Each structure stands twice: as structure tokens, then as C-alpha cells.
């Protein structure tokens, strides 16, 4: 196990009431996104990998080197780990210019000043930062500072690159450009990458695998497409804008835990399942539907409305409760007001049924 390249994590950290308990692996060249709400333990996970927070149990292993092993009483201090960390707030040294920031790692690990600067220059050019070499961090834009932080982390030639919310501090416009750049830089990086984010879009664009972390535990592991299409938790469902239900499936029907029933196209589904439903698949009417192909129809009433870019998201009480997307014109024509009674219908083919959290129970090393 230990001689395998890449990152192997089987770790727990206890801090007061909070407990982080995770197990996963990342191959060299792979990007794993850790997705989760605030307080889920994402930052704690990064800090344990960097060596800034020691483990309470388990072990961390990178390219065959044990970083932290509670049972084996091994703990490598941050300076001795081949781990680069790009902080969310970058933490560029304000008293050094861009080139000396990037040269800091090589210099601290024993390179001569000239050699360290030469190496830094190489990284600056690779990341298209050559012209900024003499600038101070205070003179950089958010996107530039992010690239410098990345160059600084890469200049130490780590085997594992950690990115803490790499795009969170950027405004919406630079975000897309930086996301694009970051993807190409991560593709060029030979080591394992672990990227912490609360934005599923970052995960979709940048990661090969996504691990969803909630309350210190892994709730889902999969490719970004899987996680986004078939979320295991309401947190991810809400982020990607899906209705998510759990229930009991039998003979083409799912009895939902929150009340109500849905007819599904997949007649083979049995037992505990999750049901995902796109808001745009829900048809809203003020009359009971008759003679329709939709297999699901139920009465409800309007609870709230939110204007999205080109549509209105309706929050409807059922059972089952559901989010539905309609056009502003539809809202006007139907005369929808909060409290208004409505009829809701959904075609069975629009209802996605999948097994409940089976990929989570696969546990440590359940994917690679």
C-alpha cells in the first residue's frame, strides 16, 4: 500500500465536538475536488495534509512516504512534506516581490540565491507572470495574485498540490478566466491535486473526481457528472438546482419519505432509492390536468418565488414539495400568487431513480 504513488488518506481529526473522518486516494495527475458546505471539515482536511494540524487517528501517505501515522507515531512537520498549499487568501509575503515570493520555496530548501531565482523565473514564465516579477503582492490583481500563489507552491516541486477555494476570492468576471487557466496548469501538473471548493461548477470544470464532505464525513464520491446528476444529499442537490427525494421503490412507484408518491419509468427499481427531478421538468397548472401523458399529477400551493436569470423558480408545497422553473410570462398568465392552489405534473421519464448512497458505503479506496 505505502509504496503506491499518489496520496492515500485514512484519517480522523477530533476537535471538541467536531470529528472529521475520511478515507480516499488520489492518483498522480488526478484532481480530486472536495465539495462541501462551510464547517464540513474541508479546511481541516487540507491542514492535516499540509501538516498544519496533526491527525487524531489513521495515517496519511504520499508517494510511499508516511506523512502522519498516529499508530506508527510518525509525524512529518510541514517543511519536510512534499506538499504545496495555495491558500484561499494566497498569503503572498508582502515584503518580497513576486519573483522572491516564488523563489522562497527553493531558497528555503537549500538552493543558492541565484539558483532559486532562476528556478522562480522559469515558473513565472511558465505561468505567464514574467512581466510581474518585480511587483509587490499589493500591486497585483486578484487573478494575478492567485497565479503567483500557484507558481510559488509549484516551485517547491510538490508531489501533492492543495488548493483551498482557489476561485472564491475572485470577482465573477476574472473567475472564468482564472478557472480556465487553472485547468490547464493542473493538467500539466504531474502530482496529485486536491482542491477544496463549495462551488460544484469549480468541481465540474477542474476535477476528475469529486468527494462530497458533510459534517466531517464523506457522503458521496464520484465523477463530477455523477455527483451533479445524481446527488446523494440535499446540500449538493440544492447547489446544482435539483429536487431530491428519498423513498421506497416498488413496481415502478416510489413512496417518498416526506409524503406523496411518484411513478417512475424504471420499473426494476426496488428498495431504498433516491429520486432526482429537474425543476424545469415540472409542469404547473391552475386546473387539474386530464387526458395527459404525465404519469404524476398532484395538488399543491405556491409558497415562494425567486427570480433567476431568465426564469422564475417556484417553491411549491405538496406533498411532495417541489421546486419548479417557469417563465415570467407563465407566472403572469396564470396569475400566480403566494398561497395560490396549483396542480403539478411530471412525466415518469423525467424522474431519475438511483440506489441510495451505495457508492458511499464502498468506503476507503472505493474508487480510483
Amino acid at each position, binding site marked *: 500500500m505505502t509504496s503506491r504513488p499518489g496520496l492515500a488518506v485514512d484519517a480522523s481529526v477530533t476537535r471538541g465536538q467536531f470529528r472529521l473522518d475520511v478515507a480516499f486516494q488520489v492518483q498522480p495527475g488526478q484532481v480530486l475536488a472536495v465539495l462541501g458546505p462551510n464547517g464540513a471539515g474541508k479546511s481541516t482536511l487540507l491542514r492535516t495534509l499540509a501538516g498544519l494540524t496533526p491527525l487524531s487517528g489513521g495515517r496519511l501517505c504520499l508517494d510511499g512516504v508516511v506523512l502522519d501515522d498516529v499508530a506508527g507515531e510518525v509525524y512529518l512537520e*510541514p517543511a519536510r512534506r512534499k506538499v504545496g498549499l495555495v491558500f484561499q487568501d494566497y*498569503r503572498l*509575503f*508582502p515584503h518580497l516581490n513576486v519573483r522572491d515570493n516564488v523563489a*522562497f520555496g527553493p*531558497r*528555503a530548501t537549500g538552493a543558492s540565491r541565484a539558483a532559486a531565482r532562476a528556478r522562480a523565473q522559469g515558473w513565472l514564465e511558465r505561468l505567464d507572470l514574467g512581466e510581474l516579477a518585480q511587483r509587490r503582492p499589493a500591486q497585483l490583481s486578484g487573478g494575478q495574485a492567485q497565479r503567483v500563489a500557484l507558481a510559488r507552491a509549484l516551485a517547491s516541486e510538490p508531489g501533492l498540490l492543495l488548493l483551498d477555494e482557489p476561485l472564491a476570492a475572485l470577482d465573477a468576471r476574472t473567475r472564468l478566466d482564472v478557472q480556465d487557466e487553472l485547468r490547464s496548469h493542473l493538467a500539466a501538473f504531474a502530482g496529485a491535486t486536491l482542491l477544496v471548493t463549495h462551488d460544484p461548477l469549480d468541481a465540474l470544470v477542474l476535477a476528475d473526481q469529486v468527494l462530497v464532505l458533510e459534517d466531517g464525513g464523506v457522503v458521496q464520491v464520484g465523477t463530477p457528472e455523477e455527483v451533479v446528476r445524481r446527488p446523494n444529499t440535499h446540500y449538493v442537490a440544492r447547489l446544482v438546482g435539483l429536487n431530491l427525494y428519498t423513498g421506497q421503490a416498488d413496481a415502478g412507484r416510489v413512496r417518498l419519505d416526506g409524503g406523496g408518491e411518484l411513478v417512475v419509468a424504471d420499473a426494476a427499481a426496488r428498495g431504498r432509492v433516491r429520486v432526482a427531478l429537474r425543476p424545469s421538468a415540472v409542469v404547473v397548472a391552475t386546473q387539474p390536468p386530464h387526458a395527459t401523458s404525465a404519469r404524476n399529477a398532484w395538488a399543491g400551493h405556491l409558497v415562494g418565488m425567486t427570480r433567476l436569470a431568465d426564469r422564475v423558480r417556484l417553491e411549491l408545497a405538496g406533498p411532495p414539495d417541489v421546486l419548479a422553473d417557469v417563465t415570467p410570462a407563465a407566472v403572469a398568465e396564470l396569475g400566480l400568487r403566494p398561497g395560490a392552489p396549483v396542480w403539478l405534473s411530471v412525466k415518469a421519464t423525467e424522474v431519475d431513480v438511483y440506489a441510495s448512497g451505495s457508492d458511499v458505503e464502498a468506503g476507503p479506496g472505493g474508487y480510483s
Partner: protein
Amino acid sequence: MTPPLSRADPLSGAARRRRDRGDAPATRPPVPLLVPAVIALAFLVVPLVGLVVRAPWGQLWPQLRSPGVTQALVLSLWTSTVTTGVCVVVGLPLAWVLARTRFPGQRVVRALVLLPLVLPPVVGGVALLTAFGRSGLVGQWLNSWFGYEIPFTPAAVVMAQTFVALPFLVITAEGALRTARGGYEEAAATLGARPMTVFARVTVPLIAPSLAAGAVLCWARALGEFGATITFAGSFPGRTETMPVAVYYALESSPDAALALSLVLLAVSVTVLVALRERWLLGTGL
């Protein structure tokens, strides 16, 4: 009889100008507060005015050039500078330990560091004598092993000054270390820097401005040191007679020299105050 309501007092010129600027109305201090406040200010200012008025302005340069005065000046300048160096070399690590580590009895240690600030300097001098005097706690060993005696040497001057000036550097540096985010140090560690490298290449440069302010305070305090110095180092002209000590003795023999030296010390103090005013007001450490 109630006064007629319609009659308003005309605004004074100053009040109208304040209104035009949109400032808050000025608070007029009540007389029982104003009088003692003026007395307090006068008490601080009048002696300095006296010093400036009575100073032998015409004789200033010759006075400062007279051998005794020059000796004291030179001795004071180099001993305070050495003291400042010593304070930085030992005080900065102490500040680091206080700010960045936790150990049992830390509050006691911090209180001990602050003690010289409130201790009468003459007591400091006596304490130094009992420790480093010829038959003192440590002094007797220095004497019997190396035949070395500290009291009444320039080294004693530096030690007396260090005793009173060190807290200034330690508190200023500790305050700066606490305010400086530990985040940069973490970043340096993840880049492969060992703790000593982090200290030298990240921590010290980051707190350099505060450290400089602390050093200036420390130097000014050392320059003005009197009680501990005269007790522990005595007053041998050219060897241990620093400026404040020289002022004290000159006051009887040649008052003009005393005034000239006092004026130099006042000028230094004003310069320090002006140089540090921003840090002072912003309250970094002190």
C-alpha cells in the same frame, strides 16, 4: 416670568463657521474641568519653557565642546546604542517566546518582564549590585574565576541601561508579533522553511517597522537612564558618567553645561516623539 420664545440668540461667528462646515457642535468644557486641565498642561509645559528660556544659547556650542560634556555625550551615545543592540538580540527572542508559545507560568514571566517599567531605577541599580557586584550572587564567581569586576565600568552602564530599557523592546515586539498574522509563517512552513528560516526571512521582516519603533524607544530610554546607572556604574567621567549623570553633577559646578546637556536630551526626546507619533497614537505595543 418666562423669556419670550420667539427671540433667538444670534450665532457667534465661530458657531456659524462650524455650521457651514457641517461639524458637530463643539462641546464647551465646564469651568470646574477646564481650570484643572489648564493647570495640568501648564505644569508640564512651564518647566520646559524655563529650560529653553534659560539655556545659554550663545554658549551652547562651546559648552558642548568642553571636554567633560563631550565625554559624557560620547559615552551616552555609544552605551545606549550598544544597549539597544543587546536588547534586540535578547529581547526579540523573548518577545517571540512570549507571543508564539505557551508554557506554564507565562503570565508570571510577562509580569517579570514588565517589572522594570514600574520599579524605581535606583532599586534596579541596587539589584544589579547584589547580583553582579564584587560579592554578588553571580559577581563573586566572575571575580574568583576570571578576576573580572563589572560594577563601575562601561559594561555596568550598558547593563543598567539594558535592565530598564529591555521591557520597551519586548512589549513593542511582542505586540507586533501578536498582531502579525501567523498565516504567513504557515505559508512559509508549507514551502519547506524550517522554524529558524521562517523567523529570519518572514517573521522579522514583517514586524520590522514595529521592531524599529521598539528599538528607538529602547534607545531613548537608555539615553535617559540615571538611577540604575549611578547606583551600579557610578560616575567616573569618561568611563561611567553618562549625560544624565553629568547633568546632575554639573548643575552645581557649571549650570550652563547642565542646561546645554539638558537641551540636547530634550531635543532627542522631541525628535523621538515626532518620529514615533504615528505608532504611538495607533498604539502598537505602547
